[in-house]
């Protein structure tokens, strides 16, 4: 895992590739094209790029309208403004009519860093999960982001994609990507660790640290939060007996709750949710902020150990 690229950057590049393959693809942004990296698409296909200005609610519903004309809109902004500010627009004007809009939000989680708590969405997965019929994808690295972009374009209906600002490692191994199909990255009998986004790399590092102490954990990349791969979750929970979820999101409403919903009343296991513990984030260097909230490999390893 040497090369690093932010999933937002991989998103921008993938859009350019997708734009070449599919002329129905249009991209919208709300004055953040330089940050969400949709500027790459804007450069390649200016006629199919619409900057809606600092008006996310309008952009979200313009996307809804464009989708009814047979186009495939990728509606992009920061997670706090997309899933947050335009929540009800997504709920009522995209998800309720089942329109084919892809809401793709970067700068999710506390790894936003310096901008601080006002800009660090820690509840976006929860908000989107509660909407009936919403597909939620959280790619773990640059390669997976590319595949996810193509996959959400291929599927019919609303989807939410969560992307990060911080550059993160590209996994050495390449895995096939299918929406709703979790990827087992590492097999180990002592615990099943379900992670998403940037936390997948951290969980893999935690696995190495634990392995040195003789503890072997399974690490599962939950790139799709909804529909969740219930079969995989159940199987690994039963197999390992200890379940740990890791996400750069509130422990309320996110991946941890999605996994718990699968297991509740079905599998008897120890369960620890690692995430943001019902507090807002703050300014700092992304790596420092992640450490502040206990989301680095060594901290995750310690919590896994405590669970077992």
């Amino acid at each position: 895992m040497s090369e690093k690229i932010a999933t937002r950057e991989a998103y921008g590049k993938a859009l350019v590739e997708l734009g070449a393959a599919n002329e129905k693809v249009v991209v919208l942004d709300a004055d953040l094209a330089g940050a969400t990296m949709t500027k790459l698409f804007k450069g390649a296909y200016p006629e199919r790029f619409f900057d809606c200005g600092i008006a996310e609610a309008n952009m979200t519903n313009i996307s809804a309208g464009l989708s009814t004309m047979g186009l495939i809109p990728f509606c992009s902004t920061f997670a706090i403004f997309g899933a947050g500010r335009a929540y009800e627009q997504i709920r009522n004007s995209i998800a309720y009519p089942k329109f084919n809009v892809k809401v793709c939000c970067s700068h999710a989680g506390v790894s936003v860093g310096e901008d601080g708590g006002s800009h660090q969405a820690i509840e976006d997965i929860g908000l989107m999960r509660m909407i009936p019929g919403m597909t939620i994808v959280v790619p773990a690295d640059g390669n997976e982001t590319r595949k996810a972009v193509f996959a959400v374009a291929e599927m019919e209906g609303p989807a939410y994609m969560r992307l990060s600002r911080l550059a993160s490692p590209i996994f050495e191994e390449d895995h096939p990507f299918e929406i709703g199909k979790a990827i087992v990255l590492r097999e180990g009998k002592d615990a099943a660790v379900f992670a998403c986004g940037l936390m997948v790399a951290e969980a893999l590092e935690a696995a190495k640290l634990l392995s040195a102490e003789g503890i072997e954990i399974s690490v599962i990349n939950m790139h799709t939060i909804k529909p969740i791969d219930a079969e995989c979750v159940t199987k690994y929970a039963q197999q390992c007996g200890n379940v740990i979820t890791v996400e750069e999101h509130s422990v309320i409403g996110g991946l941890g709750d999605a996994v718990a919903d699968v297991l509740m009343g079905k599998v008897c296991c120890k369960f620890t949710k690692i995430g943001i513990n019902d507090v807002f984030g703050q300014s700092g260097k992304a790596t420092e902020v992640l450490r502040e909230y206990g989301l680095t490999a060594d901290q995750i390893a310690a919590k896994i150990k405590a669970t077992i």
Partner: protein
Amino acid sequence: MNTAELSKVCKQVRRDIINMTANASSGHPGGSLSMTDLMTCLFVNHMRIDPKDPKNPDRDRFVLSKGHCAPCYYAVLAEMGFFSRDEFENFRQLHSILQGHPDCKKVPGIDASTGSLGQGCSIAVGMALGAKLQKKDINVYTILGDGECQEGQIWEALMSAAHFKLDNLTVIIDNNGLQIDGSNDEVMSLGDLAAKIRAFGFELIELADGHDLEAIDAAFSAKTAEGKPKCILAHTVKGKGVSFMENQAGWHGKAPNAEQRAQALKELED
């Protein structure tokens, strides 16, 4: 259709609104009655749509941004032949296609689900933009409520319609002056709507009488300058056509009882 024929259809639509809301013992008759002439004229004389082919990709589009006035929408669509009038009695009932607010998944002829105020206008902007991008000759229409213009998103939508030069978009404002809690001026003054909309880059046609079918018809036919979106600001009467409902905010979201229904239907006879 000439205005005499249109006028007959409008009466039928108004009777349907009364019957639907009375049957359901709920719904929004006031605003449905105020927009009846605008919507009927638009659908009968101007929109290029085919009830036998409701999903034709090249059809004109309509968004009822003031989605609570679904009874008028349903009555006009049935009149056009998109579905049977038998559906009316199921309005607002369990498992009905005729939801309290328009649901495009369920009703043939409806292009967008609306009801949460402020959102439909932006959807219409997206439709008009999509038509332009694909170089299709498609006109997009949306009806807004005046009270709805208190939503900030309406102004985001108007700003973007002018920015994207959407001369294939017509925004119609049903300016009946009343909303749930009282008059617009009591609740939240809209000020000089006409001046505001012009300042947002629209070509504006103001209809002093939003029930004058000849004037409405001419407003829809009027061509605007290239690159400029059109707004028809129609001054209307809430509850129009039913004496005891006219200009009464109380009839915004209240259904007539049996006695009131009978009286209303009598007033709306041909």
